[in-house]
């Protein structure tokens, strides 16, 4: 097939203050191809696509669209030039109907004497949704009634409705289940076959290799290489990405699934949210992986363990050291004041988990899938975020000194190697991987022995992922009880001692760690 040049960037550069996010990138995108963009977090992939779609301004260099210079004044301008982008974050607006969200800014189309013809708008929205096979979503429903995934799909319907010549998908698939992913993949292929261009950004290398015709690798804002499909090689691409050798297998390499027989967390016959009669036991020194399709209730497992869902039936019990009595807390404060070590071995006692408060008493750590909204406080500093969950541990007679805080935060920043200019830097300025390190640090520092991580590597680049996996493995060896909920099967296969597949709110299958375990063995139980 003959290739016609569609979008060309010449010396494209973007600076945020002093930081160069995109450095002199010359990239050619052709019609009729799916171009993957890959690179570690902060390598500039999102920034490039944001400049093309008019979300960010261009610092220097230019974008040529069909040979003509194109300088979008905003997202709307880009859309008028047939460029649509789907962003990583939530791109729909609460409290509007689905149809209103699809035609946001375009209500004028359905206008009549200053009023919007809703019937017409809903009909058009239904058409847009049907075009990508989403008949189950009703245009006049409030968007809040839909899950994150469905809302993403609505955004896709919106983007496709405008019949874009360039369709940019920015790390959207990480938030989607298998169905959603397949939908978006088939859409991308359709567009390519219609002679349009697709820019696809993802962290998921196998996914990129499967869907893309060519891959552009970015590192530190520079274009490193563009690799054609015929030259795809997973290890080689990874190497180019990070600029150093990463072993093909960055998961743990042992297949020893033994663990202590001390139970740390027990979910007994629980009915809550989507879950119907779920039984899970987590032992000390064990990593339990929870997999499945995202709409199948797997995330509710984590919520139940952290006391966030009301139990209709059954119970959740954690086994953790008993809490200090008042007298012991006084002694602890006293010994902190006199700088003497304080040791009080407490027996392990059961805690009934019915609320977040119970869960915290039992020292359970939880990282939500939506960590920016729920686990972290973005505006607050790294130090404040790290110490927030450990205030009780840090306080001496109720007072938390800045010194104790600093010491605590420094241990985590150094230990987890969080990249930051200072501990006072707001967390919102950090990259995804470093944000996640902060969430890890919050619980590890607090000495939580039971850790529940929902999608711990979501939006995290390969380099940081490796560190996280090493960390999880270390924690396991030190006797922590760990639950990983993940939509990425390779991660679960690679990391967990036991794997539970949740489907329709029930545990369908249990797998034990083994080198023979393959994705293909599991997928059948998921779908």
């Amino acid at each position, binding site marked *: 097939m003959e290739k016609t040049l569609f979008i060309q960037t010449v010396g494209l550069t973007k600076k945020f203050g002093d930081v160069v996010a995109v450095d002199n990138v010359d990239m050619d995108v052709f019609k009729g191809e799916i171009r993957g963009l890959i690179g570690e977090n902060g390598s500039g992939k999102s920034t490039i696509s944001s400049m093309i779609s008019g979300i960010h301004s261009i610092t220097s260099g230019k974008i040529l669209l069909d040979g003509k210079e194109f300088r979008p004044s905003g997202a709307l301008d880009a859309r008028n030039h047939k460029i649509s982008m789907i962003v990583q974050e939530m791109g729909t607006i609460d409290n509007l109907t689905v149809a209103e969200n699809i035609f946001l800014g375009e209500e004028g189309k359905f206008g009549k004497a200053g009023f919007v013809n809703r019937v017409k708008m809903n009909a058009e929205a239904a058409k847009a949704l049907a075009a990508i096979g989403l008949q189950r979503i009703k245009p006049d429903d409030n968007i809040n009634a839909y899950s994150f995934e469905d809302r993403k799909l609505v955004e896709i319907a919106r983007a496709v409705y405008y019949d874009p010549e360039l369709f940019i998908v920015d790390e959207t698939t990480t938030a989607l289940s298998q169905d959603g992913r397949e939908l978006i993949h088939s859409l991308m292929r359709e567009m390519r076959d219609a002679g349009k261009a697709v820019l696809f950004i993802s962290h998921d290398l196998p996914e990129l290799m499967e869907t893309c015709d060519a891959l552009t690798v970015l590192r530190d804002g520079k274009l490193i290489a563009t690799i054609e499909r015929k030259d795809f090689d997973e290890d080689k691409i990874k190497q180019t990405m990070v600029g150093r050798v990463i072993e093909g297998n960055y998961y743990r390499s042992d297949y020893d699934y033994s663990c202590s027989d001390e139970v740390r967390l027990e979910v007994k016959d629980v009915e809550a949210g989507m879950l119907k009669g779920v039984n899970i036991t987590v032992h000390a020194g064990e990593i339990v992986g929870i997999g499945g399709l995202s709409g199948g209730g797997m995330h509710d497992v984590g919520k139940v363990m952290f006391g966030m869902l009301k139990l209709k039936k059954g119970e959740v019990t954690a086994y953790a050291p008993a809490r200090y009595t008042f007298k012991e807390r006084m002694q602890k404060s006293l010994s902190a004041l006199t700088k003497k070590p304080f040791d009080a071995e407490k027996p392990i006692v059961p805690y009934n988990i019915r609320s977040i*408060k119970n869960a915290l008493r039992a020292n359970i750590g939880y990282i939500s899938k939506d960590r920016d909204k*729920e686990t972290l*406080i973005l505006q607050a500093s790294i130090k404040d975020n790290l110490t927030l969950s450990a205030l009780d541990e840090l306080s001496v007679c109720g007072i938390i000194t800045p010194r104790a805080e600093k010491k605590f935060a420094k241990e985590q920043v150094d230990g987890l*190697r969080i990249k930051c200019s200072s501990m006072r830097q707001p967390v919102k300025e950090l990259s995804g991987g470093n944000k996640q390190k902060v969430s890890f640090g919050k619980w590890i520092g607090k000495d939580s022995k039971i850790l529940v991580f929902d999608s711990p590597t979501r939006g995290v680049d390969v380099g940081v992922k490796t560190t996280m996996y090493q960390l999880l493995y270390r*924690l396991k060896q030190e006797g922590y009880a760990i639950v990983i909920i993940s939509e990425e099967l390779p991660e679960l296969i690679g990391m967990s001692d036991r794997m539970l597949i949740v489907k329709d709110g029930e545990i369908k299958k249990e797998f034990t760690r083994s080198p023979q375990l393959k994705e293909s063995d599991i997928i059948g139980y998921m779908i």
Partner: protein
Amino acid sequence: MKTEKEKRVMVPAEAPVEETSETPKKRKISGADVWQFAKSQKNSLIRYGAFVLVLIVFAITTGGKLFSTYNLKTIVSQVTPLLIMSAGLIFVFAHGGMDISVGAVVGLCSLLSVYVLNDTGSVFLVLLTCIAVAVACYVINGGSSILFKIMSTISSLAIMFAARGIVTYNVSRTDETIRFTNSSLVKMFSDNYGFMVASCVIIVLICKVLFDYTKLGKQAKAIGDNPLGAAQSGANVNLIKMLCYIVAGVCVGIASVFAIARVGSVSENMGSGREMDVLIALILGGMSLSGGTKSKLSAAVIGSITYVLLSNGLSISGVPTNYISLVKGILFLVIVLLTLRQSKNIRELPR
């Protein structure tokens, strides 16, 4: 448990933390750098800038009268109640709440303290009554906003009308002025400037400890930024909010004793306008009214002093009272606009 300390550091620091933003030491300071610095320190700049500006401008326009012994005493007696109120209410604002009932609560406390003092002659009981009444008001205020999930502005509006209603009713019931029969009893609160300063210092110190060095203050600030995140990090959101309201109540109660002692009698307008005073004082102090982790207690301290200097300076300079409100209004607007500009700058951050 013996190895607790070592266990906390999970990954040994094999490689040193990379310094990402290390700037060469010898670098020319350009205008842009100064601007960047100013932007990042905006709240502190507003806080101290406004204070210094007001101080210099009025020192000149009043020809030094601002610092006469008499006027300094006036300033102290005006600052004391405002400062104590702001120090308490900052707990409410920091957790994302809003209070506009403080004026009416001061009115109600004043009314009751006159009754109590005239009946019993005990200043201690007056103080106790004021604190109890103010705390009760704020517990209802916070409680209803938490329980029924209504906006804190609305619940405080209800308290404001209720408290103001009681004051107005009691004042209108009698033809006599409601005043202390023996005002010398509360002299300590009206004429003893050393006591005023000492009270301010002690209360500010206590608030500072609560606000910056305890779980209460830290979690309250976190709630102001992200209630969901704070809850998942162990904050009992409702309890913390309630405690914040109680702290505010205690402070407002104490402040109202100073307020009534200065005036000596209760009119139906006793305390009205205080809610705006506190708001402007906090804003002048560089506080963001949406709260959050950037809240600083110094906003209450510096802001209150700046605010009093401003109104005091304006009236000594001979500006008519009507214009004073206008000036305050414009100032309020300007500073709010300055603080709001922040949101625009966030736009161009990498995604």
